[in-house]
């Protein structure tokens, strides 16, 4: 976790909707939740009012393991939003969470850490402005802490 994350108050905050609010409420309690369809059992992310796979409107919140792999990544040298300029360069990644969904997040890792597509990662909670965000860190090959 980087101290740089917590001091920048001008970071663009999440913009919860009535449907996605449970995700962000859980996140502030350091719980990483996603929706699962009661009919087809598939994971749904980002949150919505229906299942995009079968159009069922019965979805239930589940707690995620927060473990996954890097589907792809980039080292952002010139971020699109000025609030992130002082953080750059940093790593953004698409994470395939093992519960069956993909999300975009940031890695807490140094950009020079030799990341590869397919590397395993795990969730870490990091403050960004007034919000806690689910970021990720590579799982060391020996599996240790």
């Amino acid at each position: 976790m980087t101290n740089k994350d917590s001091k920048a108050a001008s970071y663009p905050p999440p913009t919860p909707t009535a449907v996605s609010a449970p995700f962000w409420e859980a996140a502030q309690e350091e719980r990483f939740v996603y929706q699962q369809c009661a009919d087809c059992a598939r994971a749904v992310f980002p949150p919505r009012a229906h299942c995009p796979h079968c159009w069922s409107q019965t979805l239930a919140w589940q707690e995620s393991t927060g473990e996954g792999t890097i589907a792809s990544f980039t080292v952002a040298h010139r971020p699109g939003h000025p609030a992130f300029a002082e953080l750059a360069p940093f790593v953004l990644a698409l994470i395939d969470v093992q519960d069956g969904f993909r999300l975009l997040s940031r890695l807490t890792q140094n950009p020079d850490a030799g990341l590869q597509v397919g590397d395993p990662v795990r969730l870490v909670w990091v403050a960004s402005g007034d919000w806690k965000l689910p970021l990720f860190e590579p799982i060391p090959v020996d599996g240790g802490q």
Partner: protein
Amino acid sequence: MSAGAIVGVGELAPQRYSAGVTTLSMLATAAIEATHDAGLSRGDIDGLLVGPQVGETPQHVPATVAEYLGLQPTMANVVDLGGATAAGMAWRAAAAIQAGMCQTVLCVLGNINERGRVPRSPNRNPIREFDVPFGASGANTSYAFLAQRHMARYGTTSAQLATAVVAQRENAQLNPKAIFHGTPLTVDDVLNSPFVVEPLRLLEIVMPCAGAAAFIVTSPERARDLRHRPVMISGAGEKITHRAMSQAPSLTSGPLKAAIASAYRQSGTGPADMDMLQLYDCYSIVIALTLEDAGVCPVGESGPWMVENDLTWRGPQPLNTHGGQLSFGQADLAGGMSHIVEAVHQLRHQAGERQIADARTALVTGNGATLSEATALVLQREDV
């Protein structure tokens, strides 16, 4: 089979920054040029397709543009497919004509780019909610994910991607309208430019600029009585799959694959029939992925293929003979129209120094958001 023909084109030379003009005034200049190019006049235009959020107005865009141009169309609409908008307009225009809603459609796109203007999306959508707070604003990040994944899976290299950028820049040296006309480029130049979003560097990312373009579509029958040999829209395809990169069905292929297949099928053509490839090229990686999705080269082999083949106007299947967005310029959505305008010039055999021999068939693609919105056209010079 053709439902419509492109009979007029107009295009402003892209400029890095605009001053003292409005988007509406640039649209008007391109529209008037296209109408005159067709040998038509204002009164002949009874259909209008425009892009979303034209500089001076976020809403009622068709009515605003119609009033500004002094048109009273019987069919007007916004086409909102990002970089896929222009090609999407072509088949929509033809379909509206076939449906009897109008006879001659003006398709027009453009944008100002004022120095110091900082665009900030006020959107409240899943990207704003789930991408931006993590530091992922704008398209660069998303295309970097695609490039990284292609490199990881197929061994594609930065030097290979740069080859296509350089070939297009060479084409641009024969196009006085290109924003990088007079500025040649080498692979080393690309590889020595700074990283913006690894693995993508500054010179493989499109530079925003100002400009506008327009084209006129009418029925094949009417087209034969006009000034130029018509360019037939002999096949079209479209597919939209997602908005946020995290929701893309694939990171190494896109909906262009289906859109291009549809355009081939409708026109009875295949990749080998294309005399030129006018491919949407906002980033180097998009060229590579589109070559694969178009079946021009095998899946995963675009990297070596781009190095082994001459993609300049001299080659057997030239890529973006006008320079592409990367070297001609991308004036917002009009950037995606530049490929159509160039194909029309080539198919009319009016492309000047960069004219390719006996050009008869062109593949044109459009790509919106991040391989999210896809449109493809097969355009053909009509046989005499």
